[in-house]
């Protein structure tokens, strides 16, 4: 044992002495600037340290530093500024090298902003959630949290099942990239929420508009990016603990993250993360909603090996949830629906309980990912990514089978198992002759099986795509242009029983898509962007073959096997203005969609032993969706901030010459905020109130719904938060109150609006505690 320790010890000693191999031409130099990550202002007196040589220099007033007399070799370089995390970088020096550092203040650790600057030239700039918005979304579901972004709405089925909506579109028209991987769950269903733990995200962003070229089919309305923070670059072990409590539903969340980086093996970085969520029946202003609890446990781990020239990392995550589905919304037939709608209160009521009964959904999603990069000389970077996802969905009916032996099996009425393999290889080339770009290939293989009641058939899907995007931007040019093209092929085969025989037709889809865009920096404060993109998606298996009774919706849904590919042409334009006193972002969009697939009420009923059911059929229409999202932020003084947001959509069905069904109505939000001056005891403290107004959806086709769209509503929300310095860290505390006036309201985009009011007042309290377990002693201040 002792021997082993000795061997290990000497091994580690040797490890430390690797890079500084003495050579003759020790005349190289390392120099650069240390600049604030957010405003690029110089950070004088920052320390730059080379571990192998034990050299430390200070940056001058301009933030400039210089280390001379270096021999070629690989060095571990640290940069440290007071109040900032140390930055660590492994640098390979073969010639004199310039290296800039961008330390970030603890106050607003916001890796996002650095990235955002790089995105400024894109014609479709991702909209990131701010650190505060992210904090305030802690404990909410992904769909609920994303709705904080202007122009992102939600399609809900009760309070726990929330899907994001962009420009009136959702489900198969939005692509979610979880960790860079195309999320493949059962996203075709309106009551199938994204299977992602939002606590994983260190950054949540939305790219509105068609984005098929880079990300593949389905990205008709936009792309949602869920990215974890980068793995820890500085030595040590640190973590973060999040505690969230909600008054409504008495929901509690705990999440913890541990990040590590060995000072002896700085290229090795790791993370372990987990979260727990438990909530009970939620309360509308006048009553509890029976069976609306949720229980969720999620965990993930990552380990990576990063060198300047290459890097690999592996990620694994598991998402497990049990969601109660509001009992009174599970109804027998149209008469029940009518009764439910006419009733003042839900016909089934309950008291508070954490217990989740029937009906409910049990969902499990597992993601395994391996990815890497390899620098191809000066020219570019090769990245590859493989991911495997398992999605298991169980839907447990309200009814226990009458037959005792069947009931004893306690089987879910419906089970789906979806397995997906995806892969991508892409080569990013750096700017050469004003061009930079990416070229790549992606593949997908997917299989779905079901057990229980028939709703959609088993299927297999194989697809591949080739894409190429280039951006043209001369140095110092105000104008940047981009163009991209993509070609995809998808093979799909379904398997179902028809008259005791397997019916298994095959389908092939092939399509190209393209995009053209420009961004123009009018002046330092204002940037204009325009983009035209095409996108497409094959009809989903559900749209082709679903046939069955949907209890929650009291309808018979029928697919149409003759549906063809949906094609979209999407135009976006935006104007962004940023200054000290005024900021605004105005987005406009126009979507021309041919063969838009939607569920059309046939206005016919189908007779069953349970009574008559309305019949809904998947059908296609030519549709136009256009609208605008506007955010204006005015700061009359350092302390006050006033923000107004508007989101407006008009959608027209040309085939029916009527409005498109199920489109969000106009939404407005005004908020006023007071920011306190930072002091030694308090930072980033604020209080804000906001008023959200959602208008009645008057632009819905008549006689297409069981009940007219509900009235508009206005809600009053408030929140406050602060960072409290404790030792070297900041503890972030926040409190929010939604629907303070306990208003009774129903929302057109909630499928349970026939049955119940929305949630009443909900007060939440959040605490975020960062902590350091092991501090590397590499820098001496």
């Amino acid at each position, binding site marked *: 044992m002792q021997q082993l320790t000795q061997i290990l010890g000497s091994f580690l000693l040797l490890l430390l002495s690797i890079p500084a191999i003495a050579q003759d031409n020790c005349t190289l130099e390392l120099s650069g600037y240390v600049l604030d990550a957010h405003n690029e202002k110089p950070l004088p007196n920052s320390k730059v340290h080379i571990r192998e040589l034990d050299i430390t220099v200070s940056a001058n007033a301009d933030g400039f530093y210089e280390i001379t007399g270096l021999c070629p070799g690989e060095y571990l370089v640290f940069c440290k500024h007071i109040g900032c995390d140390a930055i660590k970088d492994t640098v390979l020096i073969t010639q004199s090298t310039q290296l800039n550092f961008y330390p970030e203040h603890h106050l607003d650790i916001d890796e996002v902003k650095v990235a955002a600057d790089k995105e400024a030239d894109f014609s479709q700039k991702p909209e990131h959630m701010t650190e505060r918005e992210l904090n305030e979304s802690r404990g909410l579901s992904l769909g609920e949290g994303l709705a904080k972004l202007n122009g992102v709405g939600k399609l809900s089925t009760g309070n726990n099942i929330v899907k994001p909506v962009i420009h009136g579109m959702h489900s198969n028209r939005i692509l979610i990239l979880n960790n860079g991987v195309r999320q493949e769950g059962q996203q075709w269903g309106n009551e199938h929420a994204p299977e992602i733990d939002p606590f994983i995200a260190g950054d949540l962003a939305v790219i509105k508009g068609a984005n098929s070229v880079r990300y593949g089919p389905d990205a008709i309305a936009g792309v949602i990016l869920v990215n974890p923070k980068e793995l820890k670059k500085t030595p040590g072990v640190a973590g973060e603990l999040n505690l969230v409590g909600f008054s409504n539903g008495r929901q509690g969340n705990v999440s913890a993250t541990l990040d590590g980086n060995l000072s002896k093996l700085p290229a090795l970085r790791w993370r372990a993360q987990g979260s727990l969520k438990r909530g009970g029946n939620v309360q509308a202003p006048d009553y509890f909603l029976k069976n609306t609890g949720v229980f969720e446990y999620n965990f993930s781990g990552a*380990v990576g090996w990063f060198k300047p020239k290459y890097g690999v990392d592996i990620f694994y995550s598991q998402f497990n949830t049990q969601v109660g589905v509001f009992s009174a919304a599970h109804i027998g037939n149209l008469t029940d629906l009518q009764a439910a709608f006419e009733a003042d209160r839900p016909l089934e009521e309950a008291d508070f309980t954490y217990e989740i009964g029937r009906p409910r959904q049990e969902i499990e999603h*597992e993601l*395994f990912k391996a990815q890497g990069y390899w620098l191809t000389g000066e020219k570019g970077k090769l990245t590859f990514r493989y991911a495997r996802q398992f999605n298991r969905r169980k839907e447990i009916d309200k009814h226990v089978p009458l*037959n005792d032996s069947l009931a004893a099996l306690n089987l879910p009425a419906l089970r789906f198992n979806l397995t997906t393999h995806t892969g991508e290889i892409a080569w990013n080339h750096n700017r050469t002759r004003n061009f930079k770009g990416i070229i790549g290939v992606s593949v997908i293989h997917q*299989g779905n*099986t079901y057990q229980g009641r*028939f709703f959609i058939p088993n299927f297999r899907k194989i697809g591949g795509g080739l894409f190429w995007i280039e951006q043209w931007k001369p140095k110092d040019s105000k104008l940047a242009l981009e163009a991209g093209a993509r070609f995809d092929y998808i093979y799909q085969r379904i398997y179902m029983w028809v008259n005791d025989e397997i019916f298994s037709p095959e389908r092939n889809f092939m399509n190209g898509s393209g995009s053209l865009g420009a961004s123009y920096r009018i002046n330092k404060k204002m940037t204009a962007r325009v983009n035209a993109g095409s996108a497409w998606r094959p009809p989903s298996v559900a749209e082709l073959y679903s046939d069955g009774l949907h209890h929650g919706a009291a309808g018979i849904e029928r697919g149409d096997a003759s549906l063809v590919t949906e094609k979209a042409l999407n135009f976006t334009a935006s104007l962004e203005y940023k200054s000290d006193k005024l900021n605004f972002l105005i987005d406009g969009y126009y979507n021309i969609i041919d063969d838009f697939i939607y569920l059309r009420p046939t206005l016919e009923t189908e007779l069953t032993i*349970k*009574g008559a*059911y309305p019949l809904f059929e998947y059908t296609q229409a030519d549709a136009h969706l256009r609208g605008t999202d506007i955010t204006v932020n005015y700061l009359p003084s350092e302390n006050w901030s006033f923000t107004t947001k508007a989101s407006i959509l008009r959608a027209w069905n040309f085939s029916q010459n009527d409005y498109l069904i199920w489109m969000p109505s106009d939404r407005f939000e005004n908020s006023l905020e007071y920011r306190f001056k930072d002091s030694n005891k308090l930072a980033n403290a604020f209080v804000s109130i906001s008023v959200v107004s959602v208008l009645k959806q008057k632009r819905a086709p008549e006689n297409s719904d069981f009940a007219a769209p509900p009235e508009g509503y206005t809600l009053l929300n408030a929140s406050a938060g602060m960072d409290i310095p404790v030792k070297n860290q900041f503890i972030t505390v926040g409190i929010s109150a939604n629907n303070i006036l306990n208003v009774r309201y129903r929302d057109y985009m909630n499928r349970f609006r026939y049955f119940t009011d929305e949630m009443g007042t909900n007060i939440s309290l959040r605490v975020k505690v960062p902590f350091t377990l092991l501090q590397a002693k590499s820098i001496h201040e």
Partner: protein
Amino acid sequence: MMKMKTQVKVAAVLGLALVAGLSSCKKDDDLVPTPQPTINEGEVITTMTLTFVDDAGVQPNVTATFRDPDGDGGLAPDIFDDIVLQNGTVYNCSITLSNETVTPIEDITAEVLEEDDEHFFCFSPSGADVTIARTDSDGTFEVGLESQWTVGAAGSGTTTVTLKHQPGVKDGTCAPGETDVEVTFNTIVQ
């Protein structure tokens, strides 16, 4: 030299993690190799029959059936009788339910009877001169598998027969619960 070793070590660690990652998860299910969709594990009621027996034993027995042999959706019902009763007669009516999607045909009536405290039949005549009263009980509330139909003057209308599933919420009224069966029969009093 040592650097090589480190890399080998790291490669080994990452390799192990990869293997662990791949193997620790659930078995990699085969992607739809031999599809075996099951037809219907659940349970459906396809058939409801009402059998009327004259309390006085004078009039002949009457039956009325609703049958949708492939369950909800799909094909339309193949049997949908009218209820034809004689005026001035008191009938005892019993209801049977069955599932004809399986062989042998499953008797649902017995299962309803077994859980009679969760089930409740409602009868709503309209137009026809019929008065209906449930005659059985779960011990607390009536059930309706057995009922008495008092038929008045000749005429015609409809009668809606509804079976409500009311686990834990049965209160002797039709309001709570989920509808299992709802059939509106044309009703003719001769």
